């Protein structure tokens, strides 16, 4: 379970998250949606502390950390919480100097100190799962965007995190390649992987998400089950945004 309590984030004078609280169930997929600059990416990055909240509490499973303005957070505490998470980035961010399988092994070998043989076996199994085993020894620069993102998903899953965080995982991909990634994430969701994703890909959100949180200007406008929120949003702002996404989606797939 992930619990974000009264999260506030400021960059200087700029308040980008205002008292945001979200709880997600284990095994569920939560989509953070909303216009650019609405704070969804920042909120996601507050979960694995790539951004340190100005104030509020982050809890993942049994690990909890509370933040205060001006307070110091020990690197070890950040590490402890972060190791509960895996992250998939918009621009993949594979390590270019390591092959696909080395990318997946990296966390196991360097962080968890697994012996190389065992890490290799697990990495290969994960590449198999995302359909990339045939390209295990390829350099990232030789892979398509969709392939790179699938390797990145395997890398994020390698240390068996309690939650997979996805920051716009399909936004850098054209629709065809995005579909590969949607399929893989959909499969993971059906296997009970807990996920939180920031996305404005309606296809991804509607296929994969159980819960949707609509964020605008750093605050939650509306949240609820994906089926209801997409078909029958309560707030006018939400329905307008979803209508825009539908139009974009239709234009793209033409």
């Amino acid at each position: 379970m992930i619990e974000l309590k009264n999260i506030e984030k400021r960059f200087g004078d700029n308040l980008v998250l205002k008292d945001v609280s979200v709880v997600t169930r284990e095994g569920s997929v939560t989509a953070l949606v909303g216009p650019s600059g609405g704070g969804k990416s920042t909120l996601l990055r507050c979960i694995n502390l790539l951004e340190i909240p100005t104030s509020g509490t982050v809890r993942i499973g049994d690990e909890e950390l509370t933040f205060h303005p001006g307070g110091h957070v020990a690197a070890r505490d950040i590490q402890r919480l972060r190791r509960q998470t895996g992250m998939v980035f918009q621009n993949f961010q594979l390590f270019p100097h390591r092959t696909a399988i080395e990318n997946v092994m990296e966390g196991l070998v360097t962080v968890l100190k697994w012996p190389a043989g065992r890490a290799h076996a697990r990495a290969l199994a994960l590449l198999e799962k995302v359909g990339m085993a045939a390209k295990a020894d390829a350099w990232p620069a030789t892979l398509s965007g969709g392939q790179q993102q699938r390797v990145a998903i395997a890398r994020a899953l390698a240390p068996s995190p309690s939650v997979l965080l996805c920051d716009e995982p399909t936004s850098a991909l054209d629709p065809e390649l995005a579909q590969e990634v949607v399929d893989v994430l959909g499969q993971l969701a059906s296997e009970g992987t807990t996920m939180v994703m920031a996305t404005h890909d309606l296809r991804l959100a509607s296929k994969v998400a159980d819960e949707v949180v609509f964020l605008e200007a750093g605050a939650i406008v509306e949240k609820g089950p994906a089926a209801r929120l997409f078909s029958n949003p309560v707030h006018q702002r939400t329905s307008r945004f979803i209508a825009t996404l539908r139009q974009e989606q239709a234009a793209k797939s033409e």
Partner: protein
Amino acid sequence: MPHWLQLMLESLGPLLWAALVFTAPLTLLSFALGLTVGLIVALVRLFGPAPLAAAVRFYVWIIRGTPLLVQLFLIFYGLPAAGIVLDAFPAALIGFTLNIGAYSSEIIRAVIGSVPKGQWEAAYSIGMTWGQAMRRTILPQAGRVAVPPLSNTFISLVKDTSLAAAITVPELFQAAQRIVAVTYEPLILYIEAALIYLVMSSVLSALQVRLEKRLGRYGGFLEARS
């Protein structure tokens, strides 16, 4: 056999010996130590506390702003007046190390900064500490970019070690000077010395190409055409 060729062949032994015993060790040692200094200085400037960063900036400013020959004279001829007496070789080693440290720190700082921030985040996201991210993710990528500029520094250093002749280190150039003093054949001897420097630099250039290929084998770079 023409006179000039005979003279060159006769002096080749002493010149190569001087290159092997003084020029090469001085170059290799001061480059290795200088790179270590450069890495530390770069890390301090990027990540260290402000007063320390200011101190190392001062060091870089002094070294880059004054002539290398003057620095060598200060260390070898100047410091004894302050009670610090050094042999010629250690004095030269210190001088060249400080010099390489200052110049390479700027290169290292730049190449570390050139690795995208997203690579740090990717490393952190799989649980790495700062040190692990630096060692496993950032430095290997920065290293590939650093090879051409650091090769420049290295090749300059090989030739700059000839300045050590001025503080009595019996390296290649000084060996040539000594032979000239006896034979009165400066044209021939200095051409010969220049050729030996040229060969050493060429070997380094060839190594640079191989190292670039090796470190860049993962692709994604624009490569030199030949």
